[in-house]
């Protein structure tokens, strides 16, 4: 007890300047075990500490408190405490102990799920991410937890706001996989198929030491999303995908491959039959909704192809070509596509004719010019970043040793800047 009280006074005393905080951290590290030993009695001490000033100490105490199993009643009060802590803590202090912070947040998420109120966890975790991140390009372990809560709470828009940021630094591979997978699912929920495709593609082509279930599930969704978005699916992974992935992913996703084959044959009747036949498999993977979207995308694609060949076409002809049952259905499909902006057309109900129009975008408006300009700026920044990374890598001692070893000979004509042997 005494040690704990002593610790509390130290925290209160040493939370002023940065040097003090560093020495405090040492104390706390040494006292960590004793804190854990007395975890059940630590709660009242929390009231003596102020999360906004004594963030580091509060964190240690909190972490020790929440270490044990938690019941539902304790969970609701605990959730409140942690939420308050997250919103008021100081970022610099908690960055000194990122693991503890992460584990506290993870427990927070578990408790929120225990209470079956994922929505309560969304906003606090968002704040937590912002405080833990060293930059917006940094992927923390909290990102996938946050996205999971968004998915469960169905508030996709908040999830999207995090996904907008580009990630370049990753701590742990597993976080990355989960982040991209959940992110892909959120984008699918918001019908932003292009971004979903990008995220799922990243999962599938990431360096993978061994095949993992996340990649398999992601690959299944990847096949479906690429069919919806671009109407085609290439069965071979790009060269930069890991060899583990290239060899093994196909084996786990056989029905999806056959689905893609059936889709590319273009016969809607056969395709629908295939879907019906394999319904349970898709359902067990929770992909049935996506598969249904693939079916409707097939109709859409056929109608889009018609816009390339015809100026006007009767609804009856559309129904016949696309193998719909009646002109009424054709009209509904076309109307839906016009509203979604997927084709440009006018329906003449008197004659039962559809008139296809050209894309009215003339690329002359101010908005378009701004859009192009901002794209150019963004790409220029990206290029600069690429050059910087390239320069950094070429100065990296590890790279140079490896490159130096692989040089076969050192011709006089072959001056390349890397000497034959480069030992540091």
């Amino acid at each position, binding site marked *: 007890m005494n040690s704990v009280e002593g610790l509390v006074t130290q925290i209160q005393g040493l939370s002023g300047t940065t040097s003090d905080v560093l020495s405090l951290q040492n104390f706390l590290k040494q006292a960590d075990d004793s804190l854990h030993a007395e975890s059940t009695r630590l709660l009242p001490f929390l009231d003596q500490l102020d999360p906004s000033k004594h963030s580091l100490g509060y964190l240690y105490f909190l972490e020790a408190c929440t270490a044990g199993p938690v019941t539902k009643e304790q969970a609701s009060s605990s959730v409140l405490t942690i939420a308050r802590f997250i919103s008021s803590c100081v970022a610099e202090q908690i960055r000194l102990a990122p693991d503890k912070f992460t584990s506290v947040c993870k427990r927070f998420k578990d408790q929120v799920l225990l209470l079956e109120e994922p929505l309560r966890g969304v906003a606090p975790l968002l704040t937590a991410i912002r405080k833990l991140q060293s930059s917006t390009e940094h992927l923390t372990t909290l990102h996938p937890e946050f996205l999971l809560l968004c998915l469960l709470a169905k508030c996709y828009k908040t999830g999207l706001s995090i996904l907008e940021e580009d990630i*370049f630094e*990753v701590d742990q591979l597993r976080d*990355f996989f989960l982040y991209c997978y959940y992110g892909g699912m959120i984008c699918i929920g918001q019908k932003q198929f292009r971004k979903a495709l*990008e995220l799922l593609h990243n999962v599938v082509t990431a360096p993978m030491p061994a095949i993992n279930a996340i990649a398999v599930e992601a690959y299944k969704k990847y096949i479906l999303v690429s069919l919806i978005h671009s109407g085609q699916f290439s069965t071979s992974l790009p060269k930069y995908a890991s060899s583990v992935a290239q060899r093994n992913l196909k084996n786990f996703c056989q029905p999806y491959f056959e689905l893609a084959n059936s889709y590319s044959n273009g016969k809607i009747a056969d395709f629908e039959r295939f879907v019906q036949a394999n319904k349970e498999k898709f359902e067990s993977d929770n992909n049935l909704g996506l598969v249904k979207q693939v079916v409707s995308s097939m109709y859409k694609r056929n109608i889009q192809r018609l816009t390339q*060949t*015809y*100026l006007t076409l009767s609804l009856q002809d559309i129904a016949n070509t696309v193998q719909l049952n009646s002109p009424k259905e054709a009209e509904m499909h076309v109307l839906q596509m016009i509203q979604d902006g997927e084709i440009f057309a006018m329906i003449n109900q008197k004659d039962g004719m559809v008139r296809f129009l050209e*894309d009215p*975008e003339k690329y002359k408006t101010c908005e378009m010019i701004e859009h192009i300009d901002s794209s150019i700026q963004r790409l220029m920044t990206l290029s600069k970043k690429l050059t910087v990374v390239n320069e950094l890598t070429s100065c990296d001692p*590890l790279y140079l040793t490896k490159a130096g070893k692989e040089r076969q000979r050192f011709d006089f004509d072959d001056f390349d800047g890397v000497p034959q042997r480069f030992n540091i």
Partner: protein
Amino acid sequence: MAHEEIKKGENTQLYREVVHKIDGRLGPKYSMDATWCNMTDRKTEQRKEKLENELNAYRTNLIKESIRMGYNDLGDFYYAHGALGDAFKSYVRTRDYCTTSKHIIQMCLSAILVSIEMGQFTHVTSYISKAEQTPEALDSLTVSKLRCAAGLAHLAAKKYKLAACKFLEVGPELGNSYSEVISSQDVATYGGLCALASFDRTELKNKVIDNINLRNFLELVPKVRELINDFYSSQYASCLEYLGNLKSNLMLDIHLHHFETLYDQIRIKALIQYTHSSVSVDLRMMADAFKTSVAGLEKELETLITDNQIQARIDSHNKILYARHANQRNATFQRALQIGNEFDRDVRAMLLRANLLKHDYNLRASRKV
């Protein structure tokens, strides 16, 4: 008819096949004449033995010329008897004993003959190139023969443009001399049709219509000449009519058995040419010109537009075809934006992967240390 022809020769195997096909349908006179078969077979055996003995004698004597002639005779014998594989082998064996280029040419021509009969056009092409590479200048007759053979080889390989070029270069000296392979009418027909299917308008004019040499050949097949002229002057109805008439004959032709493909190609070219120069075309008039229904014509045009061979759009309500020229400016903008997006996506993914790899490598390196 075939029956009598074969009986004149000595090819008993072919005889058996033909009799089997006739199957007694034409009356008792055409049934299997077993005695004739056996007689011919015995004669053949005797002759074969004699030839082989002669050949062995020559071989022991090691006189090149006689060995060569021996193999040649053996080859001719096998050819007459229908054993084409053996004939080919014998002819090829003469190669080692050829001394002058004339011998080589003779060998090549015989090999080509047998290969064409066997249908192995890869051999034909190789022997043609061999014959053309002889150091001596070839006389024009041989050149024409070689060009015919080359044309046939390309035709079998479905390379219509090359076949047309070869056939059109055949000189008039051919006359009746290569009749065991191809007749002059065939040269004209094949050449004309392949040219029609694969040349564009300028080539057609230069190489076919203005070609004096070819004119002599085309005199022999006036239908093909009319056909080509009609196509050139855009009278597609009569052109396609002529083609239809020729079709029944040509379907049975030994070399032109994929006439259907040629016909389709010619039809497609006609359609494209018809629509090429107009801003709008009335589909009803076009259907009359091409002797088809409007619905059928629409389907054909739809396939062509999807394949991007015609730049147009169909107004199905008024049945008019409108030429449509892609808006270059919009297309460029669209493409530029798309490339920008792709670059963005790929570079970001790459930087991410590089980072992951580096991280992984660092982790492993630090673990090792």
